[in-house]
């Protein structure tokens, strides 16, 4: 490995440690669950390799255990995956000049990878391309390896670490707090939380994401039209 690449790997790895713990655990659980439904390790590995979307994969277990309805399965995973559109819009600038690896970086933009690449910058002297590549690639590996271990050895080893999946929630909360410290990030961060909570209360835990996304886009757009949204601008309409 070239010096640049190993430097990038060393810089990228620490950012992925919480994902390592979370993905090995959740991937393992996914492999075990698939196995219990009669799907051997090969199937779950294939799914984790090419779908690489935790919640959509868990949701697809329903489709794999009832009568074959491909369109239902597709619609459900589109709904579950819809939030990824936001991640890609957020990464348009950063991933603009990524060249040959760009398709892979975009493919690998799951919740956890997004949370890291949107907040972490490559340190001085480390190239952006290999830095973002290794974050994406390591997370992808953890997910596939976790799935494989669960599918292959789930019957032999029992991983009884109840609550370890909370490490991913911890990752998002930590990034949220880190971003909150910068004054100018607070408005969009607060809009995100408030819209999500409002829609969660209104629509329930299974169908709040898409209404929340629409509400966020609406409010953020209003903010652009009326920049500081102070009392004066609200009362007087446009300046």
């Amino acid at each position: 490995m070239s010096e640049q690449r190993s430097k990038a790997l060393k810089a990228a790895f620490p950012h992925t440690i919480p994902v390592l713990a979370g993905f090995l655990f959740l991937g393992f659980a996914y492999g075990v669950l698939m196995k219990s439904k009669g799907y051997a390790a090969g199937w779950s590995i294939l799914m984790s390799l090419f779908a690489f979307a935790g919640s959509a994969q868990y949701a697809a277990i329903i489709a794999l255990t009832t009568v074959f309805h491909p369109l239902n399965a597709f619609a459900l995973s589109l709904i579950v995956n819809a939030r990824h559109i936001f991640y890609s819009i957020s990464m348009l600038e950063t991933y603009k000049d990524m060249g040959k690896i760009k398709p892979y970086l975009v493919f690998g933009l799951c919740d956890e990878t997004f949370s890291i690449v949107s907040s972490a910058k490559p340190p001085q002297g480390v190239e952006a391309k290999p830095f973002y590549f290794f974050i994406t690639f390591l997370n992808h590996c953890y997910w596939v390896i976790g799935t494989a271990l669960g599918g292959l050895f789930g019957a032999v080893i029992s991983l009884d670490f109840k609550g370890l999946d909370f490490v991913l929630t911890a990752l998002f909360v930590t990034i949220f707090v880190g971003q909150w410290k910068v004054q100018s990030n607070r408005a969009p961060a607060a809009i995100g939380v408030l819209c999500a909570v409002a829609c969660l209360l209104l629509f329930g835990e299974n169908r709040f994401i898409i209404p929340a996304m629409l509400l966020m886009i609406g409010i953020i757009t209003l903010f652009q039209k009326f920049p500081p949204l102070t009392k004066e601008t609200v009362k007087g309409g446009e300046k």
Partner: protein
Amino acid sequence: MTLTAVQTLIVIGLVALSTILTRFLPFVLFSGKRKAGKYIRYLGRMLPYASIGLLVVYCLRNVRFDQPANIVPELVAVLSIVILHYRKENALLSMGVGTAIYMILVNFVF
């Protein structure tokens, strides 16, 4: 295994396709010659922070106020992460301590 091998492959293919569609759509729409306009670039600046907020709520969507076991572990763990990260700003420490607190609470207290 409820489905046949071919049916299973189709389902896997469709889930993969949904991942690819949702992640590639903005890049396909707004790159190359059709540059992202001012509005999309503005969204690109605002959405990262809003999305992380959404993700936090998404992870905590199952908390319930009906009994302490359904909310106290999450509440205590999240608050400790917030306080610790605000003071020390050491990401791995905040996450490690928060997760440990959560695991202790769900395994030994509730």
